[in-house]
C-alpha cells in the first residue's frame, strides 16, 4: 500500500550492482525491480551470495547502484550527493546488523544517543528520545552498561533502540537474529513485529531462515544469484 502521500516507501527499477573482481565483473544485484509499500514487513530471503545484503545496502544508501534507480519515498538515491545520502541514512533509515555493531567504549545510552548527535538533534531533546527508544526495546535498566556487559539479545535490542531513536520511516535489518540463539532470535522478531504494527514502520529484513521469514514477515522476496526469484505476499 502506498504511503499517505500516495507514494511507495521503497521502489527499485532494474537495479544492478556490479563488482569488479580482477578482470571479470560480478553482478551482485542483477536487474532487481521491487516495490515496498509503507508499513510492510518484507523478508529478503536467499542463500549466501544471493545479493540480498547488497540490495539492503543499496536501499540504505550505503552503496550506489551501478545502474537502475532506487526510490525511497520517491526520492532517487542514485541521484543523491554523498551528503544527501548521509541525511537519508540519518533521517529516513534505521539499520540493524547481524553483528549488532555497537561501539564498545560507549554505554548503551551513549550508543543510542549517537544517531541523534549525527542528526544534530537538540541536546535538550535527546534524553527523552533515548528513553523512549530504550523503553520500546525494554532495556531501561541497562542504560549505563557497556555492550560487553550485555547479552547477545540485549545487544541486538540496544541496536534496535539505536535504529529507532531518530524515528525513521524504514527499518532495514540485516540478519538480525543471525548471531542469536533460537529463543532470543524469536524475542527480537517479536519486537520487530511489534514495532511494525504499533509504529506502522516499514521493515525490510534480510534473512536466510525461511521458517522465521514465513512466521514473521508479511511478504517474502526471494533472491538467487543477484536476481529476483520470487515475490509473494504471505497469506
Amino acid at each position, binding site marked *: 500500500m502506498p504511503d499517505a502521500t500516495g507514494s511507495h516507501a521503497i521502489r527499485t527499477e532494474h537495479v544492478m550492482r556490479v563488482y569488479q573482481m580482477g578482470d571479470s565483473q560480478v553482478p551482485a544485484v542483477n536487474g532487481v525491480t521491487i516495490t515496498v509499500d509503507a508499513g510492510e514487513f518484507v523478508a529478503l530471503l536467499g542463500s549466501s551470495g544471493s545479493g540480498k545484503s547488497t540490495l539492503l545496502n543499496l536501499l540504505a544508501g*550505503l552503496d550506489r547502484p551501478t545502474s537502475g534507480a532506487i526510490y525511497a519515498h520517491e526520492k532517487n538515491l542514485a541521484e543523491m550527493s*554523498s551528503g544527501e545520502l548521509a541525511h537519508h541514512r540519518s533521517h529516513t533509515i534505521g539499520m540493524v*546488523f547481524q553483528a549488532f555493531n555497537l561501539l564498545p567504549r560507549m554505554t548503551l545510552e551513549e550508543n543510542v544517543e*549517537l544517531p541523534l548527535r*549525527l542528526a544534530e538533534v537538540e541536546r535538550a531533546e535527546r534524553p527523552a528520545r533515548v528513553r523512549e527508544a530504550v523503553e520500546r526495546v525494554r532495556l531501561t535498566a541497562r542504560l549505563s552498561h557497556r555492550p560487553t556487559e550485555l547479552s547477545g539479545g540485549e545487544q541486538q535490542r540496544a541496536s534496535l533502540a539505536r535504529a529507532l531513536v531518530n524515528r525513521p520511516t524504514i527499518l532495514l535489518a540485516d540478519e538480525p537474529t543471525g548471531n542469536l540463539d533460537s529463543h532470543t532470535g524469536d524475542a527480537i522478531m517479536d519486537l520487530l513485529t511489534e514495532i511494525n504494527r504499533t509504529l506502522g514502520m516499514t521493515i525490510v529484513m534480510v534473512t536466510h531462515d525461511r521458517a522465521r521469514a514465513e512466521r514473521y514477515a508479511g511478504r517474502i522476496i526471494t533472491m538467487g544469484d543477484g536476481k529476483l526469484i520470487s515475490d509473494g505476499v504471505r497469506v
Partner: protein
Amino acid sequence: MKLGDLTELAARNLREAMLRNSLTTLGIAVGVASLVAMLSLGVGLQELASSRLTHSGLFDAVIVMSKSTMRGFGGPMQNEAADATPPRRIDDPARKELSELPNVVEVYPEVRFPTEIVFEGKSFSTTAAGIPVSARDDGAYDGMNGKFFSAPDAPEAILQIEFAKQLSDNTGSLIGKELSLRYGERQALPPDNTAKPETKSGSKGAGASTDASADDDEGTGFSVVTREKKLKIVGVVETEPAAGFGGFGRGRLLIPLAIAQALKIAQPTDMREMLRGQNGKVSYDSLTVRVKNPAAVQSVEDAIKKMGFGTFSILDATKNLRLVFIVFDSLLGIFGSLALTVASLGIINTLVMAILERRREIGILKALGAADRDVRRLFFAEAGAMGLFGGIVGVFLGWAIGRALNFATNVYLKKQGLPPIDLSSVPLWLVGSAIGFSFFVSLIAGMYPASRAAKLDPVEALRYE
C-alpha cells in the same frame, strides 16, 4: 554534527588510545619546545642587545657639530650645495636653543682632554672625559666595581679598567684612594696684551697670545696654566663607556661633566675661536642631544639640521641591526620548526593507525548517518586537539629550557664577576604564535588521514573485522 558533539567524540577517541596519543602529543610538545627555546633565545639576545645599545646612548642620541667641522670627516655633506644655511657655532647659546626642542631630554657638551695623572708619586698620561649624571643609567655602569659619582659636582673619578691596571694590579684596591689630575686651565689675556697672566702658587704659565685685533672685551688671546685637581677614585668600570658616541676614543678617566666644565680646561676649540676673533667665548667640538626615545631621533635630527647645525646619529645602524636580528630569528625559527615537522609526521602516523583500528567504527558512524564531512572533521578535531595540547605543553617546556639557559648563563657570569642577564625571553606573542603554529601544523598533518577516513567505503568498513 555540531561542534560540541564533535569535540566530545574527539576527546573520547583521544582518551581511548591514551598512551599512543599522549606520546604523539609529547612529540609535538618537544617540537614546539625546541621552536620556542630557539626563538626565545633570538628574542632574548635581541632584547639584550637593544637594551644595552639603548642604554649606551647610541640610539637615543644625536651628535651636533658645526657644519665646518663635519666637512673634515669626509668632504661635503649630502645636499650641502643646496644648503645655504651658514654654519652655526657650537656654544652655550646653541646648547640652550637645542635643549628647548621638543622630545629633547638633555644637551651636554663633549669635554675631553689630555691629562697627566699623579698617583702615589707616579705620573701617567691619559685622556680624561666629562660625563653627565644621566650616564649613570648606561649599561656600561651595571655591575661596575665601586659606585657612580655621588653628586653631579663631586670631585670624584671613575677609571676604565685598562687604565686602572696601569695604576695597580689590584684594581679593586684603588677605590677610595686619591689621585691628582693635572690639566691646562685656559686663562684669557686682558686687552692689554702686555699684562701677565694670573698665576697661582704651584703653577707656571705657558702663554699663548696673538697680535690680532683687540676689540674683544675678553682680550686678544689666552694663556694656558697648569693646574692640579684632587679626585677621589669611586669606581672602576669594565667596558669603556660610550656616554654618547660623540666621544670618539672617549676617556679612560671619567669625571663629572660639571667638574670638567668648571675647571675651564683648555680645549682645541679655544685656539680656533681665538683665531676667529672670538677669544674668550666658550665653544665645543660637539654637543650630544639626548632624545626621549629612539623613535624621536629622526624628527629631532631634522629640526637640528634646519637650525643650521651638522648632525650625526646611528639611526641607520639601528635599522640594519633590526634586519640582522630578523634574519637571525628566521634561521632559529627554521631550525626549531624542523623538530615540529618531525612531530607532525608522528600525528600522521598516529591518525593513520587510528583509521586502521577504527575502520569498523567509521563504517558504523556512516551507517548511522555520519557524512564524509563529519568523519573528516572528527579526525581534524583529534589532530587539532593533539596540536593544541602539544603546543601548550611545548611552550611551557620551551620556557623552562629558556629559564634553565638563563640560570646556567648567570651562574657562569656570576663566577666571572659580571652582572646577570636574560639570555632567553618568551614574550606573549611568541606564546600565542607557537600554540597557533602547532595547531595549524597539526591540522595540516591531519589532512591526509582525515581525508582518507572520510573516503572510506562504509560497506567495506562494516565488513572489516
